[in-house]
């Protein structure tokens, strides 16, 4: 057993961490203006856009991955555009994985953020504007701290979802050890190869680590908690 634990390939863990971190950061950065905008608009447009954001969820991840593979591959429209800008191919690369995970986890980040912005309402922003804070200042000194819990919910759901993500990554990333083989795929491979012990160990490591990280994140968040209203 100890032998198994020592001889396991831990690189997938590291790659998973990278993909999930990049994806989450990207979701937070790009998701913020999107969620701010969705929180502001009204009417039919809003309902449809909200639905569009939630759409990636309803396709099986492998199928979503397949369509992304087609679109982002060398012959696909996105892939060609990307290549014409002189970048190396998206598919089977970390960049591709991050983009795929981004799309797939988008609703988990956007929904809580949007909701947070709506709940906060205009009042705190009005108050900070009257106190001389510019738009950026308003966002960083008021909106961000007041919606911190929503950011946390969004970020943890998105992070956890990316860590467990499998179908999109397998399809788009190609299960290439050392490059795109994330831990979810590694566990899957062990199960496929009927190497149950290894699968159990990796799963246990994942669960314990996640439990630890999530507990700490939630615990710290509680401590800093702000109850609105």
């Amino acid at each position, binding site marked *: 057993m100890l032998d198994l634990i020592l001889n396991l390939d831990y690189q997938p863990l590291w790659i998973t961490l990278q993909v999930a971190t990049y994806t989450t950061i990207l979701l937070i950065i790009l998701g913020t203006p999107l969620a701010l905008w969705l929180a502001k608009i009204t009417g039919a447009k809003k309902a449809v856009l909200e639905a569009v954001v939630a759409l990636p969820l309803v396709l099986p991840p492998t199928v979503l991955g397949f369509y992304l593979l087609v679109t982002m591959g060398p012959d696909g429209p996105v892939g060609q555009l990307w290549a014409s800008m002189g970048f190396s191919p998206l598919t089977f690369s970390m960049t591709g994985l991050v983009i795929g995970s981004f799309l797939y986890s988008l609703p988990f980040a956007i929904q809580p953020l949007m909701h947070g912005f709506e709940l906060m309402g205009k009042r705190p922003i009005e108050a900070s504007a009257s106190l001389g804070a510019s738009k950026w200042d308003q966002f960083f000194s008021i909106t961000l701290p007041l919606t911190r819990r929503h950011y946390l919910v969004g970020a943890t759901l998105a992070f956890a979802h990316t860590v467990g993500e499998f179908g999109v990554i397998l399809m788009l990333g190609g299960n290439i050890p050392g490059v795109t083989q994330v831990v979810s795929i590694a566990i899957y491979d062990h199960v496929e190869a009927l*190497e149950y012990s290894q699968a159990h160990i990796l799963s246990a490591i994942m669960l314990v680590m996640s439990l630890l990280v999530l507990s700490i994140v939630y615990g710290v968040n509680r401590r800093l908690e702000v109850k609105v209203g």
Partner: protein
Amino acid sequence: SNAATQQKPIHLAVSANFLATLKQISQKFTKQTGIPVYLSNGATGMLYAQIKRGAPYDLFFAADARRPELLEQAGLIEPNSRFTYVKGKLVVWSRTGYFSTDLAKLVVTSPQLRYFAIANPKSAPYGRAAKQVLEHYGLYRTLLKSHQLALGENVGKTFHYVATGNAQIGLLAKSYLMTHSVKGHFKDVDESLYSPIIQQAVVLKGKKSSEVQQFLDFFRSEAVQVQLQKAGYDLPQKGVK
């Protein structure tokens, strides 16, 4: 060893049913030559779709002959590199011992029989073969109608279904039962009852390096061939592609 660090690694894309066996083979190969081998496991259809879009694999061990053929037609492989690496064999596995491995005696209505597991005939070659066998015994429609047919997405999942006791009996790749100690008993299925499960491999276009050639040579070596047979596969007859 020192030599190992200078060797270029090779990437193998492998269909799930052959993963465990290929893993063992490539570990031996690496030990012998110092050339690292990376295995990418996946469903044949998925790997095919990826290869069509430039996946960086060197060799592709498919679960059937169709996808390698399609790749050849598309000019995506090294000329003449397509070869049959094994022929799959189907076994009936009755885990509980309650059911005989003789399918002719199977009573579908028996309360002990909840599920019969086969791989999905639509996507998995072993599934297609299993369907032919069931049809031969006139069981396929019956099982389908009575919702007793559990379709594994691949043979691996079909194996899990029976191994965990969720299905009582199943038709699956012999290789799974040869390499793992399992409960119950199993029996080869008469090969005339299903069209041969030809599993082919190809070298992908531009990937014919000396390391790949070394691997192919190693794969064809006597020792490996014996190992394949032990693992529950039939060897391709000489001369058959």
